[in-house]
């Protein structure tokens, strides 16, 4: 049996969900026999490949770059998993939303900057009006809330998907868990 092609991506999040993924510890070795990690912040691939079976997506969609990425991921992935609260409900990244982009950038780049006070116009991708959950931008197949979801929860989701079943995440995790 060929290995399942798995990817993970990291949008606007703290990487805690990826840490939790790594917390699967020795179970990662067991998984390694069944999966091929084709794209991830944890591996070297530069371009998101075609024909990905499952992508675990961490983080909210906060800037134009995130939006481009998630559109590409959706187009090339069979099962898209919103991993963690930022992906599921935009969580902490959304706390800027009530204030508006301008006020947020001013606070970050002018008020609280000691050197070189300026709001970046190039290189740094511009923020979207709101940090949004992934499912507001593209179709999401599985939701795994939690901040972060536990390693057990992630293991459960991945193994269920590998077994061809849709995981019942409510039994394993919740918002803010």
């Amino acid at each position, binding site marked *: 049996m060929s290995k399942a092609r798995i990817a993970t991506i990291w949008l606007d999040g703290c990487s805690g969900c990826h840490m939790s993924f790594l917390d699967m510890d020795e179970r990662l070795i067991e998984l390694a026999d069944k999966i091929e990690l084709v794209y991830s912040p944890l591996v070297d691939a530069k371009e998101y490949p075609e024909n990905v079976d499952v992508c675990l997506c961490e983080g909210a969609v906060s800037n134009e770059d995130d939006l481009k990425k998630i559109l590409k991921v959706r187009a090339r992935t069979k099962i898209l998993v919103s991993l963690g*609260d930022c992906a599921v*409900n935009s*969580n902490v990244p959304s706390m800027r939303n*009530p204030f508006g982009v301008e006020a947020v950038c001013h606070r970050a780049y002018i008020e609280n900057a000691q050197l070189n006070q300026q709001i970046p116009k190039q290189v740094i991708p511009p923020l979207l009006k709101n940090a949004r959950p992934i499912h507001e931008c593209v179709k999401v197949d599985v939701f*795994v809330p939690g*901040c972060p979801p536990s390693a057990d929860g992630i293991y459960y989701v991945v193994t269920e998907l590998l077994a061809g079943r849709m995981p019942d995440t*409510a039994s394993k995790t919740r918002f*803010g868990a």
Partner: protein
Amino acid sequence: MNPSAQKTLSVKTLQINGKDVSAREDQTILDVARENGVFIPTLCNLDGLTPVGACRLCLVEVKGSRRLLPACITQVQDNMEVSTNTETLVKYRKMILELLFAERNHVCSVCVSNGHCELQAMAQKLGVDHIRYPYLYPKLAVDASHDRFAVDHNRCILCQRCVRVCDEIEGAHTWDVQGRGTASLVITDLNQPWGTSESCTSCGKCVQVCPTGTLFEKGRASGEMTKREFLPYLTLMREERV
């Protein structure tokens, strides 16, 4: 108990989810369901406070009624046939929860009530794993002017438990609601900072009954923000003293 205070109450029999149950005539569907181990979700309801039927999670189907009825407030009747868990009800309850989550800024991960929140637990219990409605992201304030407590409107679901406990149990009526629609806000006295309220006795009952992280004690970590269940005891004591 004073025997003269005892009133004769007749007994009713009804069906909940096809099971025959009996009840006193002054009981609500919710009372009877709980006695019989039938789960009906609630958020605004709290034993010891007047039910208001605001959250709509406890709606049940009653045969012969065109409308769904709030279990917390509907009194039992003979031969009632109640269904508490139909497909429609399950769907509506999830939608109502989704509407609540989308309304304000419920960021569980940084909330002081994370792990002790009735809204959070209800979402898990009813299988709400994401919110399909667009978030409204209102800009809401935190009032930390009180010495011991604070109110974070970002977490408020307007269940009015604080309003009721303050009025009915403490007798201070410091809390009330201002505004309409999604602009509704719980306020202290005449919408002034909590710390300047003259009617507040700082008893903290409102904090104890708040189902979410809206009202909290200052200086407590989320692990410490557990709530005490004191109302049933209090009301029982008061009843017996009559």
